[in-house]
């Protein structure tokens, strides 16, 4: 699904953010991206979302070479991804329902589609009772679940989660990753950046470690117990 071929990124100020990255992620995988601050994780995700272009190499997502993608086509590539932010990024002036529906408006969904899909998605993250609440009335974990519902609403093939547990209680962190695992079981590829070693150890998934702009460790595809079944 995702292929990085000899990808390097050097910023205009001379910083070598990534050097000669080669990796492949299959459809349906769950991958933890770990590494210290400044290791290159952010650049890795920015390249995936076409926010930055690599200096060298090629990135392919679903048979599309995204490094050659014209600017006008970038929004359509992003519609195949869902992004979960560390700081939730919910709009305070909108209700939970509207925060999720908003992402459907952007892709041109009809009001009927929105009315049908948003309640379903909120029930999936167990927030159907809070549809009319404002984000500030929710706990950190609940806010992140709204973020997750928004990321999932357009049925993306890939979820990019940037430290989704960074701003929630440790106990709730497991709940969030459980939810991501559930989504993964339904066939969505998950790419999750995290610092929390406890989580990485607990969930037996593929781990890619980036240090100094290079991949220093990759456990490769892990057969989960579900998949084994």
């Amino acid at each position, binding site marked *: 699904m995702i292929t990085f071929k000899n990808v390097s990124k050097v910023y205009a100020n001379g910083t070598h953010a990534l050097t000669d990255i080669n990796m492949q992620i299959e459809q349906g995988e769950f991958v933890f991206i770990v590494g210290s601050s400044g290791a290159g994780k952010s650049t890795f995700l920015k390249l995936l979302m076409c926010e930055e272009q690599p200096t060298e190499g090629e990135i392919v997502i679903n048979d599309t070479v995204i490094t050659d993608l014209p600017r006008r086509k970038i*929004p359509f590539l992003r519609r195949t991804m869902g992004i979960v932010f560390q700081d939730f990024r919910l709009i305070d002036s909108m209700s939970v329902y509207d925060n999720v529906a908003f*992402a459907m408006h952007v892709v041109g969904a009809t009001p009927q589609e929105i009315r049908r899909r948003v309640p379903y998605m909120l029930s999936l993250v167990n927030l159907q009772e809070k549809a009319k609440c404002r984000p500030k009335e929710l706990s950190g974990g609940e806010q992140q679940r709204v973020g997750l519902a928004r990321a999932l609403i357009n049925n993306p093939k890939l979820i990019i989660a940037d430290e989704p547990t960074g701003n929630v209680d440790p106990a709730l962190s497991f709940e969030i990753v459980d939810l991501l695992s559930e989504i993964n079981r339904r066939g969505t590829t998950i790419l999750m950046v995290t610092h929390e070693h406890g989580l990485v150890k607990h969930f037996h998934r593929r781990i890619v470690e980036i240090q100094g702009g290079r991949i220093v460790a990759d456990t490769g595809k892990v057969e989960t117990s579900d998949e084994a079944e």
Partner: protein
Amino acid sequence: MRLSNLRYLLKEGAKNIWTNRTMSIASIAVLVSCLLLTGAAILLSMNIDSAMASVEGSNSIKVYCEQGLPTLKSVQVGEEIMKLDNVKSCELVLKDEAVEEMMDSLGDNGTVLESLLGDENFLPDAYRISMEDLSKYDETAASILAIDGVDQIIDYKDVAEKLTDLDNMVSTAGMWIVLLLSLVSLFIISNTIRVAMFSRRLQISIMKSVGATNWFVRLPFVVEGVLIGLISGLLSSLLLNIVYQNALGALAGINIFDPVDIGPLQGSITLLFVLAGMIFGAVGGMISITRYLHKEGSSFSIF
């Protein structure tokens, strides 16, 4: 784009105006001032044209006899004028009649003037003359001036020329004022939209992250600009009408010229103002959001 999407974006644009109401009011005020000044310059120019037409149409000049010339002598002056070839008509305006005419045209102010002057008549006898052939104007005027007892000729050609000069001046000054205010309006509107944009940076970044096209991001801001323009256009055409009608009311007693009636033009003026306002608003909105999107590119800076 689907109709439901368009409705959503229009609603968002209208909501923006309310959210940033202080700046929206400032934009509307500046745009209204600009449109009002434009309208005032156009109306002034139209009225000067009308005054010119009435002066030119009269084809007449006024010949004043010397101050204190006996009436009999004044009549003789008239006979001399009538003898001239190019004179079509020659009508005597006695000084007493002239004073009465003046008092009438001044209305209430005339009564004040009358009480100030008392019985003393400061006007000389005069003749209203029209010519057969205006091209022989200079020779005829010279012959009239040569007649004994004639003091001066009031030449309406001069008045027309002065009115033309005034018209040109109003047009030039109006054009510069409008140009300057247009730039100010564009600046204020684009700043209003920029404020709206900064307050919605989070929303824009989320839009970009879920795959919004630049047009989807841009449209609510353009709608905001267009709505500001629409409100300004309607408001300024209404204000212009009220101010103009009041000005006409104030000038009603003074019959200097026939002012232009804007009643039949009201529809066109409103349409012109609304269109101008909407174009300004759209351009102002477009400038800001395009600059922002160009600067930020496809970024939504999440990390």
